[in-house]
């Protein structure tokens, strides 16, 4: 990569210096285009890792996952002060609880904007999600005083679609790019906070750079988020190569372009047709099929389920997924982490043993 990737902090400062608005967005699915039409820049909050959790612990029980704990702690310590709004998609019971506690009991300065995501992939789910986006449009209009036209909305959607197509291209050519695991995920995860046009430029530059492919034991990484990111370094050190992923922050958001010319429906179509995701209620069979095809296409020999502790949507599917993958000759391992802790040595040892097993 010729240009360094700016950090979240730098991007936020740049947006604020231009006098524009920032929305802190919690995981997982939402429409970036809808926010951008109102000149609101989404900056995603996946935790972040390694914050003082005692602040969140004053409101949440210890059996709530570290992503939610950390998000609340980060908010309480002023980490989201630059955000004008906080958008929280209804991803799971814990994020639902956090949203409700914020709206009703903690009441931070920023407006809390919930977004309900349907759990099916039926026509009624698309209609409902399109209505949710319409409702969000109304709320954002009230908050900003702006009323973007359908043309503005479609232009914003197409800009995001272009960016997502480039993201998909990065995924497709990742094995030829010669990036380390850490560098690849730094790049693709910058989609979490870079404006689409900025990300597109970065992606195009990277795609034009030709380097030598990196050898390594090919694996798939599945889960919510690869935090702490040291795990990617460790996989590099152990000669592992993440050739594809089923991560909520990355591969599960490879949204295809929508079909409908009507902007709200098109936004909904993009999310509903995204790769299978337990938080959107996809059946286990769809996930098995998707992962098997992913392994076949990428040449992966095994799958690391890298899970955040207490994440029920992930945990329920694991026994069936692992059994079915085994029937297809794919080995797997479950690693559970608290994103607030440094990567435990035990985790590194288990990954190392898994890679050795695949190599042999």
């Amino acid at each position: 990569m010729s240009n360094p990737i700016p950090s979240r902090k730098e991007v936020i400062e740049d947006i604020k210096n231009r006098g524009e608005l920032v929305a802190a967005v919690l995981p997982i699915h939402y429409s970036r285009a809808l926010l951008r039409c109102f000149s609101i820049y989404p900056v995603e909050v996946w935790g972040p890792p390694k914050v003082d959790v005692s602040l969140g612990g004053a409101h949440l029980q210890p059996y709530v996952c570290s992503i939610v704990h950390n998000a609340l702690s980060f908010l309480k310590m002023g980490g989201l002060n630059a955000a004008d709004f906080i958008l929280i998609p209804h991803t799971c019971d814990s994020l639902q609880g956090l949203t409700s506690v914020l709206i009703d009991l903690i009441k931070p300065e920023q407006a809390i904007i919930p977004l309900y995501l349907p759990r099916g992939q039926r026509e009624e789910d698309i209609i409902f999600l399109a209505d949710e986006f319409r409702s969000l449009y109304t709320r954002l209009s009230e908050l900003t005083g702006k009323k973007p036209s359908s043309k503005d909305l479609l232009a914003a959607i197409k800009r995001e679609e272009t960016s997502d197509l480039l993201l998909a291209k990065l995924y497709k050519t990742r094995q030829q790019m010669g990036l380390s695991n850490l560098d690849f995920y730094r790049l693709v995860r910058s989609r979490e906070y870079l404006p689409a046009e900025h990300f597109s430029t970065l992606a195009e530059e990277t795609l034009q750079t030709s380097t030598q492919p990196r050898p390594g034991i090919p694996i798939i990484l599945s889960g919510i988020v690869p935090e702490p990111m040291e795990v990617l370094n460790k996989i590099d050190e152990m000669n592992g190569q993440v050739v594809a992923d089923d991560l909520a922050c990355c591969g599960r958001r490879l949204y295809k372009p929508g079909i409908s010319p009507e902007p709200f429906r098109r936004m909904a179509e993009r999310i509903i047709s995204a790769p299978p995701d337990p938080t959107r209620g996809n059946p286990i069979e769809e996930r098995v099929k998707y992962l098997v095809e992913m392994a076949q296409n990428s040449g992966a020999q095994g799958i690391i389920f890298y899970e955040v502790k207490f994440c029920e949507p992930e945990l329920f599917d694991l026994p069936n997924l692992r059994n079915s993958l085994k029937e297809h000759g794919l080995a797997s391992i479950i690693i559970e982490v608290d994103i607030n802790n440094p990567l435990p040595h035990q985790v590194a040892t288990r990954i190392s043993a898994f890679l050795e097993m695949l190599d042999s």
Partner: protein
Amino acid sequence: MGITDSLKYYWNVKVVGQPFLHWQRRQAERRPKVSSRWRSDILSPPLRIGAKTKELISRHYLEGRYANGHRPVAWVTSGGPVEILQALGFYVLYPENHGALCGVRKAVVEIYGEAENAGYSTDICSYARTDIGSMLSGKTPVGRLPKPDLLLACTNICQTVLHWYRVLAKHFEVPLILIDTPFVYTKASDHALEYVKKQLENSIPIAEQVAGRTLDYRRLKEIIHLSKDATELWLEIIGRGRHHPAPMSVFDQFIHMAPIVEMRGKKETVDFYAALLKELDENIDKGIGAVRNERKRLLWDNLPIWYRLRYFAENLGEHGICVVASTYTNAWAELAPLMNLEKPLDSMANTYMHPILNQGTKYKLDTMKRMVEEFQLDGVILHSDRSCKPYSIGQIDQRNLLIQEYGIPALLLEADHDDPRAYSEEQVASRLASFVEMLDD
């Protein structure tokens, strides 16, 4: 449906089982026995209706045992819109109720162990683990559970049920109806209500196909009527807790709520609650309270700790404390006014969108405050339930607000509704003792 299975059903259920259970109940009513372990010094004798509760529950599971092949079977989440299935003649099983029953019978550890051995994490809901363990091993204290022909998951209690029912759907290879009910942070939007109604409409042809018959809307209305009647009676029963002394504690309510959860829409359920109400009124007239020498009255928030009901009743009863009301048992009552017979699907959509678990933390806090006032309570026990995040998240702030804003003593107890490994009796006893002392100050 097969003739042999139907004959088996009639013989085992109608000819042998039901008459036996009826006889057993009559015996228990004629010669009521109180266990030698019952703390008669602090608690009034158990309610007479207990024999009928036992008969109803046993009969329900007996019918289930022989249902396969005789009538269609559906497994449904506890907040699921059951009326359509009842009207189509389904035998309806609630895995959560089965989980609770396993908890009360102290059978959970062995059963959920089967799920854990199969790879299910100890961090997933203990009801789900118990159900999956039972599904994988066939183990259950009720003899045998029928296999489902249809699954129905309604997300109005949690998202967990969706993941859980996806596991069931894969195992049993049967259709899964999803009724997704958007969470009500402040007010239900029109498009959310329309979405739920649409899903209810779309569920009908699927259920009809499995049942092999067409939905009779007149029958659906009758069932909604019965459902509403039973729910209204349950609301009245809970309301009797306003009397001093309270004629029934929540530990009784937890047991006697089984029919309102799994037998809504049946005439016998309406009769059952009418009889319970009558008994409570008799006790009120005689001045009989659930706890002898009732001195203090409390509210219980969240699910029960199924495997320690008696412990809590006795421990608190010893200090003259009766836990009179609960946001949990109230959840099965408070929706009665929303049911409208003239618009069955609209009314079902509205009703099933609004259980306490599908509403924001402020609604729950307001409910607690209202119940404390209405029932003249001295404090609140909030069970922080490791297995139920939707109910539990927010309780830390709710407890603080109850104490600081409203001057209501409140205690947060860490446990799990069905997993005794997440429960420490020593810790609970010590926290209860401090709380009781504080109530007396």
